[in-house]
């Protein structure tokens, strides 16, 4: 089963997104912060990560930087309320595939995520 990791410091977002993607046949993991996300990525080897930016000590940008050191970097799509175009560009430069702005259109998120999995299979 394709594996999706959702990283967000908001419990409601994690729960909602997990339920939503589980119903779409994905194996969903969640992480509430940067260190948890790194643990999940090395431990569970997800196929795709949805990554928030503003989270406690280790930001989404820090996670992206850490991921670049891995041998097989995982695919990452940013999901964040940050509007700052500079930050958006920085995430892309650090290897994120795309950037989805919160509040988001659920169907768009669904489309983007499922497309990544269909490309893979």
């Amino acid at each position: 089963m394709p594996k999706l990791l959702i990283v967000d410091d908001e419990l409601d977002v994690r729960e909602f997104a997990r339920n939503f993607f589980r119903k779409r046949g994905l194996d969903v993991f969640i992480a509430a912060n940067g260190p948890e996300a790194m643990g999940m990525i090395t431990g569970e080897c997800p196929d795709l990560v949805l990554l928030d930016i503003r989270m406690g000590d280790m930001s989404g940008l820090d996670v992206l930087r850490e991921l670049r050191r891995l041998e097989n970097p995982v695919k990452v799509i940013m999901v964040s309320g940050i509007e700052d175009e500079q930050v958006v560009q920085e995430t892309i430069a650090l290897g994120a595939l795309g950037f989805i702005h919160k509040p988001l259109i659920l169907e768009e998120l669904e489309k983007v995520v499922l497309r990544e999995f269909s490309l893979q299979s």
Partner: protein
Amino acid sequence: MMTQIDYKKELETASKGMIMIHDHVLLTKLLVRMIVRKARLRHAGMILYESARDSYVLAISRGGSGDRIPERFLRFDHTHPIIRIFHQKEYKYLIDSRNALVFDDINRLIWHETVLGSANGSREILRQVSEQMPMLNSVACVPAFYRHQLLAVLLLGAKHDGARLEQDELDFFSALASDVAMAIRNAQLFEGLKQEADRSRNLFIQTTIALGSAIEAKDSYTHGHTERVTKCAQAIARSMAQQGAFNVAEKFFENLYIASLLHDIGKIGIPESILVKKGPLTPEEYAVMKTHSARGADILVALKDFEGCIEGVKHHHEKFDGSGYPNALKGDAIPMISAIIAVADTFDAMTTDRPYRAGLSKEYAIAEIKRYAGVWYHPAAVAAIVELYEQGNI
């Protein structure tokens, strides 16, 4: 039924108090929280129209973790089925009888449409809505309108005891949602007024700048003078305010800004032969030239709300010892705005080329201004410009 009427009374009383809340987000938060608690729902949420995005955002959400939808995570555009079914007139009849769209009704409605064989696409949109509502954990959606504009949608989760939502409850929620729509509408109006005020203000400032440069068109030697005096006067005032020379008021800086832009506007009424004369003026010519500050005040008399600025223009050639014009005011009788412009004006006049002499050095100008502190110029304004000069800020 008894318990429902109890909570309705409570909610009604509370919502009456809330009408006074002008922040529509706060109002919505309180209402949604009360609805969840009193109607014993697993959760409830409010989708609000946001004009800045021209879309709808699920902005407020209350209830149990795992049940409630995350706040400000989801956005709905005008094509979303839940928005369309409420917004588009042709579907209005689907909602009318219940003031809401109830999930349990949808199959019956679809069946009804099938039997009637209507061609207006109602079946399709009902089918889409029936897919969307479970995603949002909702058993009913209650729309709220202002006139015909959809401004909010209340999403209702199931009751803890699994009981159905009664019609009187839906009617009541509909009334509460209308309060939210009204509050949103008021917030929009207020925002519109604020923008309108900002636009008018900008137009006023731009007009003032245009008027101020009108005098420069007549006298090329003063090119850039107005802008430089305005900047210098603002710098002097900021420095004085920092040193506690006077109370800082937004209005003071505004008046000073306008007055500096317009301080020489009265020169429009001075004959060109005097204004741009090369060589010294005769006593008669000088007397005419001196009328420009009072003329300026006369020109600006129509600016009703800017009395401070008119006074500032009128007295910018008064001197601290009472030897100035037009009223020979002395010391603190001279408006502070005028005292500041006088110093900035003198400094710029001395340091730029004039028809009758080349510009002098800044060092010399500052020394001259210092020499006349307390004689011609207000000592605090002089102290401020000296400091600006010493710090290299002018």
